[in-house]
């Protein structure tokens, strides 16, 4: 039995952009009012009539396997835990901002209150450890989010990935995110 490697599948076709996930995240993780760990952006309309489309984009940490935010951290406050989740050790963080500039997904921010770097953790301490799912996954009214172990071929997330084409954001950068996305199938190709 190897380590777990947690990932999340986001179906942008099922998503309706309701922001319930973002609100749940804020409540669960006591995110400061001025910042977000998670937003769902509605992009469009794109294309030409009648083949118009609206794309939904989950803006959050994508949990890179090769996370650019980790090696740059001068104190080791940014680290990857044994279950593949990239975390910040608030006590070791000096708030230099290097990880924030290094993240290609604009996922991080300096917490206005503590002055330390923060971001989505898949609710690791508060929900994953006790065996629950991340807050966004639990609240989503359309089941657009599936959470699970990417190392377990029988997990719900692996089964779902096998059934359909998926993408990862900014794949060219070789960060290999564990947030996996089912891209929009509706509307024109542009």
């Amino acid at each position, binding site marked *: 039995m190897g380590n777990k490697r947690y990932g999340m599948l986001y179906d942008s076709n099922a998503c309706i952009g309701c*922001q319930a996930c973002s609100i749940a995240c804020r409540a669960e993780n006591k995110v400061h009012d*001025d910042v977000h760990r998670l937003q769902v952006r509605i992009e469009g309309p794109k294309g030409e009539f009648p083949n118009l489309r609206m794309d939904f984009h989950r803006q959050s940490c994508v949990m890179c396997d090769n996370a*650019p935010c980790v090696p740059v951290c*001068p104190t080791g406050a940014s680290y990857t835990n044994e279950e593949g989740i990239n975390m910040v050790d608030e006590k070791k963080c000096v708030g230099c*901002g290097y990880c924030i500039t290094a993240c*290609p997904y604009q996922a991080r921010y300096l917490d206005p209150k503590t*002055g330390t770097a923060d971001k989505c953790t898949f609710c690791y301490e508060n929900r994953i450890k006790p065996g629950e799912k991340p807050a966004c996954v639990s609240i989503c009214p359309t089941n657009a989010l599936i959470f699970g172990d990417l190392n377990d071929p029988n997990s719900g997330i692996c089964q779902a990935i096998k059934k359909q084409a998926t993408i990862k954001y900014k794949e060219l950068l070789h960060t290999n995110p564990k947030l996996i996305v089912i891209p929009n199938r509706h509307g024109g190709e542009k």
Partner: protein
Amino acid sequence: MDQIWGNTTQYTEIVWGWQIAVYLFLAGLSAGALISAILVKWRSNLSAGYDGIMKAGAVIALPAISLGLALLVFDLGKPFSFWLLMFHFNLKSVMSIGVILLSVYSGLMTVFAAVIFKKEFAENSLTAWAFRPFLFIIEWFEGLGKWFDWVMVVLAIGIAAYTGFLLSALVAKPLLNVPVLPLLFLISGISSGIAGSIAVSVIFFKQSVQESNLKYLLSFDTKLIPTELFILFVMFIGLFNMGGQYAIVGQQALTIGIWAKVFWAGIVGIGLLGPLLVITLSLHQYEESDHAPIPVGALLVNSGLVLTGVILLRFYMLYAGQTFI
């Protein structure tokens, strides 16, 4: 009005602001001033005392790096936790390597300045009591001669270049993620250090400045300026050739908004073509002539232009680099 998904300020905000831009400038200035002091040292007859340019170099290099460090610390999200940086190292992080370099550099820089002003400090009644107990350490370093100089030169090159590696390590920022950035920062840092040293030496230490040294540095700086222009050319052509987001960002940085203006008018115009013009029209005659008086005015104008260009280059790279992504 916010969109339904909320405020997006955090996604457009500049993470590293003016403090870091000024720090990048000061680190390069300090390293450059030290390098010019040592270059002058190597070609002077030291029995006549230290050249005014060396004194100017020390007077710039130490305060510049100290002020830079202060800016760096107070820009942290948790300024009073800066000591953590000294207890947890991560050699994969350019910033952590920078912390090590900066500690050694600023310590030895203090010694270097003390060596150059040994006579002044030891003889002045205000400083002598505090200075004399350390005299044996200072003289030990002085006795190392060229060895000490070389260590300082290597450290200075390290300081100027690491500020470039710090930014070029950022895969997320195409304008900064280019291999020539450390070289650009090194060359422009040395250029700013020479300009600063020349200005300070002709204002404060004019009696002890040897004109042959002054002319030597001036002609050295004259070669650095076209080199910088060429590196900028290589950098942007490289960005275009890399294609994709690199090409898009390269084009945006040269054409859009305030930062494009800063680049063309500030960096290329004021900072590089300006000094070339002053040198061709006025300072060149001085370099060639054996008995012309030191043209203080033209030298100060020239130094002012170079320094303005170099500081604008740091602001441009940092701000445009974080804006166009």
